[in-house]
């Protein structure tokens, strides 16, 4: 027995020795990855975190890290379970004390559980596109970043898109909001109510119970209501079911528009023909025509260091989204190094500063080969979202086609809602908000 294992042990010893040598030789920027590849949303996690890790490796291979600092990571499987997420966080926290990139949980529940803890431990939490959405107000939530867009801003952007499509007015129209009856589905309601009051359309709310594979009653109601549009906030198996149900009651899919959780290949392909014409919001385009995605495939997979077992996922919406999350994280590291010293790994506290002072414009995105992978982002202490823009894309039966430019939600309407909610949180928790005018 022992004999058989000898080579393996020797190899392990050698690689350990090499790894420890490398640790001495170069600075390392550590990314704690609280991710999921099994469990109810495992397939989404595989694509997203696959893209994330591939980009980290890409930076290491292509430019030998950020100013010589290698990107490293450790994964911990949460199975999309809140308690496990906390356990994973505690496990990786020790390692992250030395250097830490932003933590992406891809789960609202886990983010909520970590918001207080991460602020206490000075580790920045990035919640791209999800929330706790009132963390947009950085004066109360210094360590939480709902970057790029929030559910509320996204709902507002969708309303704006419909308004433009409808000749600039939605007055007297009827819009059904069909949503997953959970924290995720409910977040957008407050924004839609505000929009309904402003634009004088009628909003009909129809919840779907988890997991949502039975929607007969809901679609019957939709048929009775005869709405002009359906705004759809679905999740997992609920999405394909909705598309098939819409086909059954002959509701035109061109009038259905979903949130960014409902617009991946995983959602539309199983629905088959029923998905054709359906639209969804997104903050990144799909496909390999984005230069950086094609380059990752060449460089990372060429070197045999790709993270995905199923290479077909490269270039899908969720994969590209993972890459875009990593692009943003790595840009934050770059930004932080400008302030705290090039060639040095950043601590969580320093990364936090960087995330709050991001300024990624289109020119920079072009240099990165990431045009359309992200909207322009400029964050500040009182705006942890930094963008609030989404694109609308349409499924043509084989691929997602963007049908709009970047649309920004109604910030003047939505952001005060966040501030009010953050204020209430600060009061409940006894937090004294920072004075953002004093931040540099």
């Amino acid at each position: 027995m022992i004999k058989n294992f000898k080579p393996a042990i020797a190899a392990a010893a050698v690689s350990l020795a090499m790894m420890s040598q490398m640790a001495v030789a170069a600075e390392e920027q550590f990314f704690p990855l609280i991710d999921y590849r099994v469990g109810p949303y495992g397939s989404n996690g595989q694509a997203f975190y696959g893209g994330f890790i591939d980009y980290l490796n890409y930076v290491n291979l292509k430019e030998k890290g950020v100013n010589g600092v290698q990107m490293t990571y450790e994964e911990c499987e949460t199975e999309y379970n809140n308690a496990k997420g906390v356990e994973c966080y505690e496990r990786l926290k020790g390692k992250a004390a030395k250097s830490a990139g932003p933590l992406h949980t891809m789960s609202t529940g886990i983010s909520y559980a970590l918001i207080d803890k991460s602020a206490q431990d000075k580790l920045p939490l990035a919640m791209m596109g999800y929330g706790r959405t009132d963390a947009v107000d950085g004066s109360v939530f210094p360590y939480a970043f709902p970057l790029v867009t929030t559910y509320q801003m996204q709902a507002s952007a969708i309303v704006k898109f419909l308004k433009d499509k409808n000749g600039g007015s939605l007055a007297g129209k009827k819009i059904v909001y069909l949503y997953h009856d959970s924290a995720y589905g409910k977040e957008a309601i407050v924004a839609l109510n505000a929009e309904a009051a402003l634009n004088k359309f009628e909003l009909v709310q129809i919840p779907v119970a988890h997991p949502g594979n039975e929607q007969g009653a809901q679609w019957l109601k939709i048929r009775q209501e005869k709405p002009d549009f359906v705004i759809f906030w679905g999740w997992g198996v609920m999405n394909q079911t909705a598309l098939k149900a819409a086909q059954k009651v002959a509701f035109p899919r061109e009038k259905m528009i979903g949130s960014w959780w409902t617009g991946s290949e995983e959602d539309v392909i199983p629905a088959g023909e029923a998905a054709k014409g359906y639209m969804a919001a997104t903050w990144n385009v799909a496909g390999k025509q984005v230069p950086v995605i094609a380059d990752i495939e060449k460089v990372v997979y060429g070197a045999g260091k790709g993270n995905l077992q199923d290479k077909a996922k490269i270039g899908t919406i969720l994969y590209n989204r993972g890459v875009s999350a990593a692009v943003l994280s790595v840009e934050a590291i770059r930004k932080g190094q400008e302030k705290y010293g090039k060639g040095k790994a950043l601590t969580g506290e320093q990364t936090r500063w960087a995330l709050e002072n991001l300024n990624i414009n289109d020119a920079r995105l072009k240099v990165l080969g990431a045009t359309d992978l992200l909207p322009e982002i400029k964050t500040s202490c009182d705006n942890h979202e930094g963008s609030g823009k989404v694109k609308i894309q349409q499924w043509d039966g084989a691929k997602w086609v963007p049908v709009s430019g970047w649309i920004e939600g109604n910030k003047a309407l939505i952001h005060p809602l966040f501030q009010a909610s953050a204020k209430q949180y600060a009061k409940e928790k006894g937090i004294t908000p920072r004075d953002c005018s004093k931040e540099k």
Partner: protein
Amino acid sequence: MLYREAGQFKTTYAADQQIFPIRQDRIGVIALLVVAFIGVPLFASEYWFSAILIPFLIFALAALGLNVLTGYAGQLSLGSAAFMAVGAYAAYNFQLRIEGIPILVSFICAGLTAAGVGILFGLPSLRIKGFYLAVATLAAQFFIVWCLTKFPWLSNNSSSGVISTQRLIIFGHELTTPVEKYLLVLSIVVVMALAAKNMVRSATGRAWMAVRDMDVAASVIGIKLMPTKLLAFAVSSFYCGVAGALYAFCYLGSVEPDGFSLEMSFKILFMIIIGGVGSIMGSFLGAAFILLLPIFLDIALPFFAELFGLPFSSATVSHIQITVFGALIMFFLIVEPHGLARLWQIAKEKLRLWPFPH
């Protein structure tokens, strides 16, 4: 030899009736408490406190609650997680709505609220039993979670239904570090475990067991079925409610109704099945087994994978973990259907005879 009662004479009723009548047990329990209260805080790391010890104690408390109901009173229940949810949301609301209420008082009130809800859902137990009752308590599981999502007042109109718990202030001192939270949870759990141990030895506990073993016979010898069963539901829900409050305040810090899913109820049920139905200690052993084994495998498997050069990804580890876990549960239940507590009891009996078994 080690575990010999010879020479321990009890000359008073008080001595005969104490919780741990054997001296070795007393010494063992005191040693354990000393280690838990003093030794552990000195040596354990932050990870141990916030990711392992605190959830272990909280789930042990919930399992204790279910064990009172299922193990001692014989009423099957699948609603433990829901009662935890009641406790968590009740404690949050007491803190929120009553100015200046001490946190410990709101924990007790949370327990009482859960007890009230528990009695409500225990009412069917007067007519139905066994699996049928389990299905009835399943209603609690769904109804309570639905209720918490449906009425925004319960989560203080939070747009998402998620609550974020208030600060833990006890006698003007705010508990922030994991060690402090651990000590708080530990104190509560120790007090409640001793209370439970006493309760099941008292007339109440004996009545529960009589009902469990045969309710017709119990009523013939004069035990009133209704109060006995409902009391079991109340006590059990009280324990679950307090566990839920601790889960929200000392462990996660923020909870959502969906977090208290049926899956969690099953987990608590597995804890008492593995640990030992009808045993206080079994609740602790079961909680330890169900919670710690996956974490242990999670850490150990990648280590072995690296040692033998196996291509493990974190997803593979997760899958293996689920498989091993299931296999071990089957193994344990075949080898010892009465759970880990029974194994411990057998060990004690063997020690009593050692080294001359007969």
